[in-house]
């Protein structure tokens, strides 16, 4: 005789609950209390929704978006530093819906009053530091209460006729994971179980160049761990082509006695981009501490297109620089720009950018 508990119809009710739970999305668990929910806003035009959902992030998350770029308004500009000249400010905005769900039907409940807040997760996005409050959204003039501008728009409200609160989140310029937390109350005072959605802010697809290879080594920026040698793969490949071309040309010049016969320098790269792109903050003192958290210098080094090449006299003597310059050019980089800081000659470098 087959035990009743083995028959399919005994398993079905539990399975149905679990399947329904998995289909609900963020925040559902088996409970008799209404529960908050955050989901992508599907009411946008198809193109907007596709753009918002197409990106696949590397950082574990519920939602995924790019960082904002090149924002002009940087109110915490440190004295003595040139302000970044952005070609075009780009705000990255994620359209979302918030609701309070019925625990039985899983439908959004009418009249829910919703409060939203956002917090940055520390040590995410490749930023392994955090002695000052980490930006949760784009820079801008502070609110009248002195708080930084709110990246949630709106950050509270009563759900609309569709029983959802439509809101947007605008990403900061730095990559990382942001936690958006929803709390809500129904008109009868019943509290919804809060829910938190993780939003990964990143540029996907970066890969690290090997820390060393034929003709080159990498060194890390002071104040970061060994995580600033990332770039888009084609740029990384071109960076590895430069020393190969350089070695070939330099050897030719030596064989023709056009430059002294001496060891061909090993190139040193640093400061490509962080693992997920976005703002790359570094130390301005060269002393090992990040003294300018969450802000330029490094207006660039965000899209995986750039690198710094150490170029002081001991790194690459003058007689080798013509060969090096042209090796950079044929490897599809633009004309380098020299950065010369008399107070830190060891950090003098050529700034490279992919064409």
């Amino acid at each position, binding site marked *: 005789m087959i035990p009743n508990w083995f028959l399919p119809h005994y398993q079905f009710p539990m399975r149905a609950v679990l399947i329904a739970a998995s289909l609900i999305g963020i925040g559902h668990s088996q409970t008799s209390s209404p529960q908050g929910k955050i989901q992508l806003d599907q009411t946008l035009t198809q193109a907007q929704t596709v753009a918002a959902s197409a990106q696949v992030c590397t950082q574990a998350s519920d939602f995924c978006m790019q960082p904002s770029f090149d924002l002009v308004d940087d109110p915490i500009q440190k004295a003595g530093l040139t302000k970044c*000249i952005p070609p075009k400010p780009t705000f990255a905005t994620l359209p979302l819906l918030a609701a309070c769900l019925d625990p039985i039907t899983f439908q959004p409940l009418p009249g829910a009053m919703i409060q939203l807040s956002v917090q940055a997760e520390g040590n995410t996005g490749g930023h392994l530091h955090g002695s000052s409050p980490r930006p949760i959204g784009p820079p801008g003039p502070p609110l009248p209460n002195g708080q930084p501008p709110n990246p949630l728009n709106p950050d509270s409200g009563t759900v609309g006729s569709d029983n959802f609160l439509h809101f947007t989140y605008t990403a900061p310029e730095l990559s990382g994971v942001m936690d958006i937390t929803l709390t809500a109350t129904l008109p009868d005072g019943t509290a919804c179980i809060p829910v938190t959605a993780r939003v990964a802010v990143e540029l996907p697809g970066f890969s690290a160049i090997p820390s060393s290879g034929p003709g080159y080594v990498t060194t890390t920026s002071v104040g970061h761990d060994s995580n600033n040698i990332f770039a888009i793969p084609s740029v990384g490949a071109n960076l590895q082509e430069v020393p190969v071309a350089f070695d070939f040309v330099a050897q030719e010049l030596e064989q023709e006695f056009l*430059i002294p016969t001496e060891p061909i320098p090993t190139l040193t790269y640093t400061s490509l981009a962080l693992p997920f792109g976005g703002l790359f903050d570094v130390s301005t003192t060269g002393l090992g501490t990040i003294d300018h958290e969450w802000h330029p210098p490094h207006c660039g080094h965000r899209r995986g297109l750039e690198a710094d090449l150490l170029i002081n006299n001991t790194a690459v003597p*003058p007689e080798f620089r013509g060969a090096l310059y042209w090796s950079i050019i044929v490897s599809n980089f633009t*004309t380098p720009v020299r950065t*010369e800081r008399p107070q830190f000659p060891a950090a003098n470098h050529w700034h490279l950018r992919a064409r």
Partner: protein
Amino acid sequence: MRNTNRLLISLTILISSCLSWRALAQTVTCPTPPNLVKVNATATVTFDPTTNLYTYQYTVASDATSQQEVSGIAVDFAPPVQNVISPQGWTSGTFSGRNTVLWAATAPAPLPAGVADQGQVPPGLFQIKPGNSLGGFSLQSPNPPGPVNSYATGFADLGIADSEDGAEAIMDACPQSVGGFFDLAMVGSTQGPVQFIPVQIDIKPGSSPTAINPNAQGVIPVAILSSTTFDATKVDPTTVRFGPAGAAPNDSGHVEDVNNDGLPDLLFQFPTPATGIVCGDTSETLTGKTLTGTAIRGSQSVVTVDCKK
């Protein structure tokens, strides 16, 4: 009144400071662009029938009005190319992901006395000065010549900044002087290897085998045959050449269906002595261009006769 004046003065100073700070922060000095040159790259092209390779030899002339010494020359090509040769002090390479050869004056001159090393690139010792020319640039290819782009850059110092963000500001604000090679170079035209349309030719239509007496004084008729994909009547008759010596035809071509396929062909007459055909040749080649400038090329096997002495 006095307090109001003080307030107004303070506000004026504050606003002026903000404006001047912003102006100062936004000021960027762009480096000299590396394209203040006027250059002509002249190609001499020869064909070796034993290797089936064209040799392209370039002489680069810098006009006297050039404001910089020429330090880089590039030429587009249809691959493949081989045996790229540079004059003394120059090096060659191919751009990554692009069919363009670059010659660069890489051999350095020493830094002038008294000039501090600040990470700059010393000028090349063998750059082409204004009013001068330099030969010795060459490459080989199985592809015939056609019009291609040439590129030239002059020597200019790199941009310099005393801070990281200053260097980035130069890159953002100075696209006319800090950019990719092809964004900045002066563009010209020269001859280089181009892709060609393979065409069928019929030497001495109606005869088989195709027998040629290299010592004859008459003409050799050669037809360019049309096909379903190629219209021979669209060939520019002024560009047609035949034989190792590249003989020009006696005429401007005669339209005739030589092979009775219903398609109009183009028949030329080439003076035999001018073709350069010699005893022992086993095939002969015709080249030319379409009216739109695309190269064409066709070959046919031949036997040479009356060659015993």
